[in-house]
């Protein structure tokens, strides 16, 4: 059974690199990550040997770049009809969903790893706490996975990649800011306090911020893994419901 996941994973990952999409994505990701860090984040002016300015911008970078990776996951399969081919092979729905998701996640992981010159730079200039940096990378990768799982589900809803992209950005934005007044004010007027607190607790930024500081709290890890699991489950349900049309 894991063999099927691996086969789906390998095909999907290879498909990113078969077209210029992968290279365009990686170059843009690295350029933007660098620009944010050095210009907006005042990396040098701060005079501190850490990667806070680098990691602080990741949520905003992911907000637009991860949906661009996720949008094709299922909508392309539906548009080209290959979903019919894939799902009539001896593979279960969850193997297909997980295999494709892991491939896209690994692809983002590759882009993330390629930011290593920033890490080298900071180690060259000073002596940062590499444990914190590792934790930040882990948190960043988990958050990317959460964004991507949302993208997987929304991509399953439509065969139009542009619609998938825009809707994913919107939903990711809401999750990102769930703990902030922009979203909470909408609910606090009428919803019970318990619900408002629950929504605030869903915020990506809150959970990311604590990992980002180097505190790997099991609850934050579980939070992101649960978000991923939930949206992947929703993907499978949506695919099953919508595959007829």
């Amino acid at each position, binding site marked *: 059974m894991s*063999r*099927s996941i691996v*086969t*789906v994973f390998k*095909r999907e990952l*290879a*498909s990113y690199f*078969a*077209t210029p999409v992968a290279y365009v994505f990686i170059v843009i990701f690295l350029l933007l990550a660098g620009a944010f860090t050095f210009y907006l984040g005042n990396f040098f002016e701060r005079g501190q040997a850490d990667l806070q300015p680098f990691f602080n911008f990741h949520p905003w970078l992911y907000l637009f770049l991860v949906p661009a990776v996720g949008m094709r996951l299922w909508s392309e399969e539906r548009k*080209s*009809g*290959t979903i*019919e*081919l894939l*799902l*009539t*092979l*001896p*593979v*279960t729905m969850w193997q297909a969903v997980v295999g494709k998701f892991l491939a896209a996640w690994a692809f983002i992981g590759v882009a993330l790893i390629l930011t290593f010159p920033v890490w080298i730079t900071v180690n060259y200039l000073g002596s940062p706490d590499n444990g914190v940096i590792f934790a930040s990378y882990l948190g960043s990768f988990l958050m990317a996975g959460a964004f991507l799982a949302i993208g997987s589900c929304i991509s399953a809803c439509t065969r139009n990649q542009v619609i998938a992209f825009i809707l994913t950005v919107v939903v990711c934005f809401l999750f990102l800011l769930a703990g902030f007044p922009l979203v909470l004010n909408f609910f606090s007027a009428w919803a019970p306090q318990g619900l408002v607190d629950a929504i605030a607790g869903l915020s990506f930024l809150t959970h990311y911020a604590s990992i980002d500081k180097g505190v790997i709290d099991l609850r934050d890890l579980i939070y992101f893994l649960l978000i991923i699991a939930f949206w992947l489950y929703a993907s499978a349900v949506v695919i099953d419901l919508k*595959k*007829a049309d």
Partner: protein
Amino acid sequence: MIETRQLTKRYGDLTAVDNISFKVETGQVLGFLGPNGAGKSTTMKMIAGFLAPSSGSASVCGFDVGAQALEAKRVVGYLPEGAPSYGEMTPRQFLGFIADMRGLTGARRTQRIDDVIERLHLNGVLEQPIETLSKGFKRRVGLAQAIVHDPAVLILDEPTDGLDPNQKHEVRSLINAMAKDKTIVVSTHILEEVHAVCTRAIIIAQGKVLADATPAELEARSRYHQAVSLTTPNVAAAKEAMSRVADVAAVEIDPQDHRLTAFPKPGKQIFGAISDLLKAQGIPVSELQLESGRMDEVFRTITQGESAEVRV
């Protein structure tokens, strides 16, 4: 072996497939005929395990496609409508992917892939992305993936669509060559194909089975079955003479090529009588033919007769 029991698919108020039951044995090639939107593809999608039936069930080789989905999918080879494939992959990569998904390994994997490449003449295009290939090659890649694991059951949705006459002929030969030890279902619009590959034909329209018979039996339902047609320079005299034959029900002249056709009364043979009469009267005939029946006419009568009833 394929068996469907009261297989039904509803989309809201629309019943795409309505209570279809049939059984296909090993060695049979079943042709699925019907107008566009008749429910052919939907039926095949349910047998292939892509869509779940609204009610009823289907099984392949004894595995229920719902309850034993994986076992059923393993024994089925399926060419979906339009022969979809991953455009950025080359045929070699694509067939490798399908073979891996089908659990083929080692020497058997290599041997099976080489075999389908050979059978479908894909050698020249193995390293080109599939999206750059012609429609005919795309279709053949789709067929290759359907048979790469040498399945016991083969479901082909319009396998010859988009192929030129030579390629059609090759695909039909391929199906015939595999027919002996497999159960094959083929959907098609092309009526001559029924003759060329099928041992049995099911005509469906509006989701219902309207006819289930061998191609010869279907043709026997044609008005043209056992009719005699001929071309002659002396049309008027020939028509006059043929009308006088006792078992002839009617004589018609084709307005375009002035070909005469004599229709027999039910169950009667008229070829001998007409042939003798024309000879006796000295009417010159350039061609004389006994018709076996016209599939397109049967198809029209069956499918449109039904829709006319429904409209009332």
